[in-house]
């Protein structure tokens, strides 16, 4: 890393020489590998190495950003000069001041037991193929499996004296089965759809997922869904599993609390927020059972680091305390900091979730269900949609189990539920305890133009909500 850290210093010098009053430079070397199989054959091996330097500058109050794929002094200087030229051309109408940070030299390394890149592609493919084989049974028409490994070496330097070398490793994976019968086509996934779960960990995380062991049940459930009735519509009690709780948390809490959205920075694309700065310490976001934290130090969290991409140190913050809004995710420009992350060397940092978690309640999953005379247990996210202010949402899940008299009963398919954010969280009346709490990581959180995909984690346990609209 000394070489790339020197490039960052070179970029900062060039930026200051070109008129920047502030600059940060990130030099990144990354490897991202996905091994995927489909229908009993190797579908793809994507093994991408990418490197480059990205430089963000403030010139006369205007931001500028440019990047260069050459990890060389020339590339670093050129990126800095171009960033300054673009900032000058853009011009500023508002005065920008950044919250100060203490100068420091930080290091970070993901604790890894088994380097995922030490596992041969063939071994990964064989694991996927075995899991696929275990899902296969009459009625299953498609099986697929994938595992991913990721490593990023990032050097950061800022003109206010922060230097950091960070070495992050991620692993993840999942399996999917699609079944068809009489024109009904249904999908089932483990541990989740859309690429499964990821964690900041080594190959040991893939082994813990036990894809092969879970596979037969996934195939069986996919077939069962094709014979299941459509989930009946109506207002009822719902219990969400951890996977769906995470989706709900991400969309209806994680994004609305991003302060850049609240100030309109994403208005044209991702949208704004129903929240305003005046809601701090005043808005009742949900019931008293609802406590949410943003924790960039969470073990295995995809959003864990030593410092963010503008040099602000990692911390754990309370976002919602017993239902009351206490804090936002923000940046140094917005008066706070700790949430600025870029998805690569070729993008500006944006306010992003780190590891946003719904703190656990108490009791078991069985106790949650035991308190339901008539309701639905919703399991594994299937679809999501929410309005630009993050108020009106609709989610779909792969599985829906009838709850009668405190017991799980029939399986339904094609379940959806809808609601309005604060009303929905206000209806939370039970939350399972720490023993049911899991950390779930996803790599597909979209935001920004040009678009960026953040890797974020969420901890959650299953929860119960009363009087929810199921179906339409």
């Amino acid at each position: 890393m000394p070489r790339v850290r020197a490039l960052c210093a070179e970029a900062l010098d060039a930026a200051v020489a070109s008129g920047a009053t502030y600059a940060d430079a990130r030099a990144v070397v990354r490897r991202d590998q996905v091994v995927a199989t489909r229908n009993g054959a190797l579908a793809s091996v994507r093994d991408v190495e990418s490197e480059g330097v990205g430089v963000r500058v403030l010139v006369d109050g205007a931001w500028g950003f440019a990047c260069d794929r050459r990890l060389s002094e020339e590339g670093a200087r050129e990126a800095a000069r171009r960033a300054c030229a673009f900032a000058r051309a853009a011009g500023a109408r508002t005065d920008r001041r950044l919250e100060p940070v203490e100068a420091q030299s930080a290091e970070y390394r993901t604790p890894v037991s088994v380097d995922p890149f030490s596992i041969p592609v063939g071994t990964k493919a064989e694991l996927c193929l075995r899991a696929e084989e275990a899902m296969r049974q009459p009625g299953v028409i498609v099986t697929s499996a994938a595992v991913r490994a990721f490593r990023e070496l990032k050097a950061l330097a800022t003109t206010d004296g922060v230097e950091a070398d960070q070495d992050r490793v991620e692993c993840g994976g999942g399996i999917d089965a699609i079944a068809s019968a009489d024109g009904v086509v249904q999908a089932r996934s483990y541990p989740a759809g859309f690429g499964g779960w990821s964690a900041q960990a080594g190959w040991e995380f893939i082994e813990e997922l036990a894809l092969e062991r879970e596979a037969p049940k996934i195939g069986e459930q996919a077939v069962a869904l094709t014979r299941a009735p459509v989930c009946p519509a109506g207002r009822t009690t719902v219990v969400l599993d951890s996977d769906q709780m995470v989706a709900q948390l991400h969309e209806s809490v994680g994004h609305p609390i991003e302060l850049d959205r609240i100030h309109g920075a994403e208005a044209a694309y991702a949208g704004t927020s129903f929240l305003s700065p005046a809601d701090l310490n005043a808005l009742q976001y949900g019931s008293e059972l609802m406590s949410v934290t943003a924790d960039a130090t969470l073990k295995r969290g995809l959003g864990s680091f030593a410092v963010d991409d503008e040099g602000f140190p990692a911390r754990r913050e309370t976002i919602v305390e017993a239902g009351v809004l206490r804090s936002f995710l923000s940046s140094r420009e917005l008066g706070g900091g700790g949430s600025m992350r870029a998805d690569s060397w070729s993008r500006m940092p944006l306010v992003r979730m780190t590891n946003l978690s719904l703190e656990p309640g108490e009791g078991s999953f069985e106790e949650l269900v035991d308190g339901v005379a008539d309701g639905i247990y919703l399991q594994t996210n299937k679809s999501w949609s929410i309005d630009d202010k993050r108020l009106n949402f609709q989610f779909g899940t792969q599985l829906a189990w009838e709850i009668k008299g405190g017991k799980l009963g029939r399986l339904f398919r094609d379940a959806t539920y809808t609601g309005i954010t604060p009303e929905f969280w206000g209806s939370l009346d039970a939350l399972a305890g720490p023993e049911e709490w899991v950390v779930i990581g996803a790599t597909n959180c979209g935001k920004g133009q040009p678009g960026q995909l953040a890797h974020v984690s969420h901890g959650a346990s299953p929860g119960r909500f009363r009087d929810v609209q199921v179906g339409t």
Partner: protein
Amino acid sequence: MTESLEAAERALAAAEGDEAEVVVHAEHSGLARFAASEIHQPTLIDNAIVRLRVVRDGRVGSATTNRLGDEGLRDLAVRAAEAADSAPKDSSFPGFAPSGALPDVEGFDEETAALAPEEQARLARAALDGAADFGLYGYVTSGVTELAVASTAGVRADQRSTDVSVLVLAADEGASGYAAATSWRVAGVDPAAVAAEAADKARRTRDPQPLEPGPYRAVLEAYAVAELLDYFAFDAFNGQGFLEERSYLAGRIGERVFDERISIADDPLDPRGLPRAIDFEGTPKQRVELVERGVARGVVWDRTTAARAGRESTGHAVQPEYQTYGAIPVSLSLAPGDATIEELCEAVGDGLYVTRLHYLGVVAPREGIITGMTRDGTFRVRDGKPAEPLPNLRFTVAVPEVLADVPALGRDLALVNRTDFYGERTPAAALVPALATARFTVTGVGSGPGL
């Protein structure tokens, strides 16, 4: 020869395998993003990516890098060879694309390619000066992209393309309007006019009136048509979705599926779109009829899905990172009708007018059921004319039902940008008119227009 094809040939020469294929994808772009009428996130990107696939003893391996020097390409060759040697034998591998005659397409404009950051910022300021009474949010972006493919099967193909897009949301606390334009020629977009259109729309959205959920007739502007069609097409017109029964068209080829006014093609050759000559496997692009006068005709194929189906690739392999999703139509074209916007409203009579959609989710791909919100210009239509503004509406529709009863189809085509520039810059746009539908189901009501 482009620099990308030159790099592809060097990578091919360095490859270690029985067969090999190299894809180079390069980007040189600028995006001036603005909020509250100020450029707040100006981004300049330069990158070039090389993917090498090799076949060694019946095993396929691949690796990708953005180090284009000789050392980087040698490392790439070693990584791809190691991946192949470690991989299981792949009897389903369809082989690399044969060499074929490339279509002669437009799509590159010197003036657009020459735009410097200062000029990209100037275009953004032209938009910002286009409407003084609202805060403006959006971007102006232009870029040059190169795609080159070289292989031991004899392919030597490349294309240099330009694209430019303007997107403007005009908004304040109680009003918002949207407009956008895209082209491969900078002369084909007028940032000030886009801003003026967005502001004009915004002015009419104040004081939204309540609406009861339920079934409505609706006018969908081209922006909404493009987004809905794009989400539907991802599974419905995708060869992989077709083979795996997620496509609405599976089992319905030759059947009447939509209103006879509806004809849909994927047409990468149309100079009114963003023309493309080759796909990401080096196969020449071609126009594919998907629906003709309401009758399902076909889907698009890449080499993998075509081999499974016993078909030929139609040139619809997407960039490598998305190839596991199958073959995707990225140049959708809905044939126009003959109605003006006023006539579309008349055809609806009593219903809704929808400018733009937000955050769509596919609820059930096989049935084409999609949910989402309207935003930035939703109105009631009464007595055949646009009437009072409405809040953002949640809709849940089966796209086949939306397109099954189309009382009128717009005459004016709009090229609607369909990319948000994630990952590698891969411009895509749909060429569509506005339309009137008799079936648009509102399932909920959200917040009002505005910030």
